C-alpha cells in the first residue's frame, strides 16, 4: 500500500544518456502540501528529474510514483488522468505561439471539460488576474509579452485545471530582482489558495530560503541532502556548502531572516 502522504516517491532511479550517468540510484520523496525545491549545479540532472516526474521521460531503472501511481505501469488513459491532475510551468513558458494568452490558459479546460466557451474565457481571465496580469494581456500573443509576464501567463495556464501538483521549472530564471520577488510572492499565494503541492527546480537562493519548505540538493547522480535550508546549512558536503558559504548565499539568508 503506497503511503498516501507522499505525492512523489522516487526509488533507486538511474538515468543514463549513452555513457553519461545522470542519476545513479537516486531516492526522493515529496510530501503532500509542501513546497519542495530541487537545487543543484548545471548538469546535475535537475531538469531530467523533473521531466521524469511529469512523464516526459523514463528512467533506465528504478521506480517513480506520482500521486500514488507507478508511472512505469500506466496505460495511455491512466497517464492522461494523471496529467490532468498535474500542472507544469516550463522554463521558457511553453505557451503556444499560435494562440493568444487567454486561449493558451483556456486550452486545458477546452480540451478536458464540457464548459462553454464564454465561461472558459472568464475563468482564463480570472486565472490571469490571480497571477497579477491585466486582462489586456490575455488578448496578446505570447511573443508580445516580457519575460516576467510570460512566466506569469505560463503559471496561469499551469493552474488552469486546479492541479493537485504543480511543477515549476526555474520560475525566476531570467527575471530582474523585482519581477523575481513578484514571482516568489505569487508562488506563495498559489500554494495558499489552492492548497497544492509544489515542486520546483531552481537555484534562486531567495526562492530556496523564503518559499521552499524542503530542499533537495542534487549532485554526483544522487540527492546529497534533503531538508529545510536551516537543516541543510549544518551538512558538510562541498556542493551543499556552496549554497551557504559565498556572500550571495549569506545575503539571501539574511533577507530571509529579516522577513520572519
Amino acid at each position, binding site marked *: 500500500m503506497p503511503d498516501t502522504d507522499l505525492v512523489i516517491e522516487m526509488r533507486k532511479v538511474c538515468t543514463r544518456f549513452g555513457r553519461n550517468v545522470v542519476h545513479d540510484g537516486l531516492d526522493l520523496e515529496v510530501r503532500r502540501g509542501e513546497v519542495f525545491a530541487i537545487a543543484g549545479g548545471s548538469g546535475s540532472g535537475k531538469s531530467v528529474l523533473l521531466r521524469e516526474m511529469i512523464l516526459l521521460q523514463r528512467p533506465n531503472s528504478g521506480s517513480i510514483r506520482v500521486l500514488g501511481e507507478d508511472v512505469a505501469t500506466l496505460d495511455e488513459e491512466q497517464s492522461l488522468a494523471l496529467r490532468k491532475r498535474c500542472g507544469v510551468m516550463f522554463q521558457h513558458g511553453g505557451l503556444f505561439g499560435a494562440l493568444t494568452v487567454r486561449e493558451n490558459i483556456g486550452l486545458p479546460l477546452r480540451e478536458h471539460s*464540457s464548459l462553454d466557451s464564454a465561461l472558459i474565457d472568464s475563468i482564463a481571465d480570472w486565472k490571469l488576474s490571480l497571477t497579477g496580469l491585466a486582462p489586456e494581456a490575455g488578448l496578446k500573443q505570447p511573443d508580445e509579452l516580457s519575460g516576467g509576464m510570460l512566466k506569469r501567463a505560463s503559471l496561469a495556464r499551469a493552474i488552469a485545471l486546479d492541479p493537485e501538483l504543480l511543477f515549476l521549472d526555474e520560475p525566476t530564471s531570467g527575471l530582474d530582482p523585482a519581477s523575481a520577488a513578484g514571482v516568489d510572492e505569487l508562488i506563495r499565494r498559489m500554494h495558499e489558495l489552492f492548497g497544492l503541492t509544489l515542486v520546483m527546480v531552481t537555484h534562486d537562493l531567495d526562492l530556496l530560503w523564503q518559499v521552499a519548505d524542503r530542499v533537495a540538493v542534487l549532485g554526483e547522480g544522487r540527492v546529497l541532502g534533503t531538508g529545510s535550508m536551516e537543516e541543510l546549512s549544518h551538512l558538510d558536503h562541498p556542493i551543499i556548502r556552496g549554497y551557504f558559504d559565498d556572500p550571495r548565499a549569506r545575503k539571501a539568508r539574511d533577507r530571509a531572516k529579516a522577513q520572519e
Partner: protein
Amino acid sequence: MEPAAIRRIADREWELGGSWTVRGLGELVHSLDAEPGQGGAITLDGSGLEAIDTAGAWVLQRWLTRHGAQATRRGWPAQPERLMSLVAAHPQAPLLQAARYTPLARVGRRAAAAARQTLGLLSFIGETALAALRLLAHPDRIRWRTVLRNIQIGGFDALPIIGLTSFLLGIVVAYQGADQLQHYGANIFVVDLVGYAMLREFAPLITAIIIAGRSGSAYAAQIGTMIVTEEIDAMRTIGIDPIELLVLPKVIALLVALPLLTVYADMLGVFGGMVMARAQLDIGMHEFIDRFGRELHGTSLLVGVGKTLVFALIIAGIGCFQGFRTHGSADSVGRQTTLSVVQSIFLVIVADALFSVVFSRLGL
C-alpha cells in the same frame, strides 16, 4: 467521486453536494438555471461539498450573478471558502474582446503591410547592393570559403534531384509531342520540340523552382533562426556586417551554381527526350543528335542560361530578405520560410513570363 449536485432544502436555502470540479460538473454546467429565490439573498450550505475547484466556483457564481442573487455561505470547509470568496469578489466585468476591424479597415491594413514589405524589400536590395559595391572595392574581403561551401550545398548536392527531374521532364515532353507529331508524320520534329522546350524554358524553370524550394527556404530558415537566437545582433556588435557575411556569399554562390545546374539539366532533359524518341518514334540517337546540332543554336542555350542569373538573384534575395524579416519566436521562422518559397517561385515565374515577352519582341 460523486457528481456535482445542488438542491433546494428550504425557501432561499440551497445545499451543495458532490464534486464541483471540472470532472464532476458534467451536465450541471448547462442545466443549472433555477430561480435561486425571491429578493436575491440566499444561503448556500456547503457542508456536503466533496470538493470545489475554480470551474465549479465560477459556474456557481455565474448562476448567482445571472439571477442577481447574493449568497451567504454556511458550513463551507476552509479551502473552498477561500476560493469561493475570491471568485465572488472578482468583478463580473464583460469579457474584453480583441479589436475588430471593418472590412475597409482590413483592406487598408493589408495594403499598408504590403507597402511596408515592399519598402523593406527595396531597402534590403539597396543595402545588399551597397555591401556588394564595398566588397568589389575590397575583393580580398570576399569570403571564398563560404561561397564555395554554399556552392557545394546549394549546387553540387542538388545534382541528383535536378538531374532526375529534368530527365523525367524530357521524357514527358517527348512523349506528349510524339503522339501529335505521329499524326502528321513529322516524327523528326520531336528533336526541335524537346530541344527548344528544354533549353529555353523547362530546364531553367524547373532548376530555379527546385533550388527555390531547396536553398531559398534553407537561407530563410538559417537567417531566421539566427535572428531568434540573437546571433545576428551579436554579429553586428562584433562589427561584422551580416549582409556581407550571410547574404553576399549566398548570392554569389547561386549566381555561379544556378547557370551550371541549368546546363546540366539541359543535358539530362534532352537525353530523356532522346530516350523517348527512340522508344516511341524510332528515331535513333545518331539521327537525334545530328538534327539537334543542325537545328538548335547557341542562342537558345544562352537565353535559357541567361535567365537563370536573374532567377538566382530572386531566390537568394527573397530567401535572405524573408529570413531577416523574422521577429520574435520560432513560430515566425516557419512562417517566413514558407513565405520565402512561395514568393520566390512566384517571382521566378513572373520574371520568366516577362522574359518571354521581351525575347519575342527582340526576335530571339
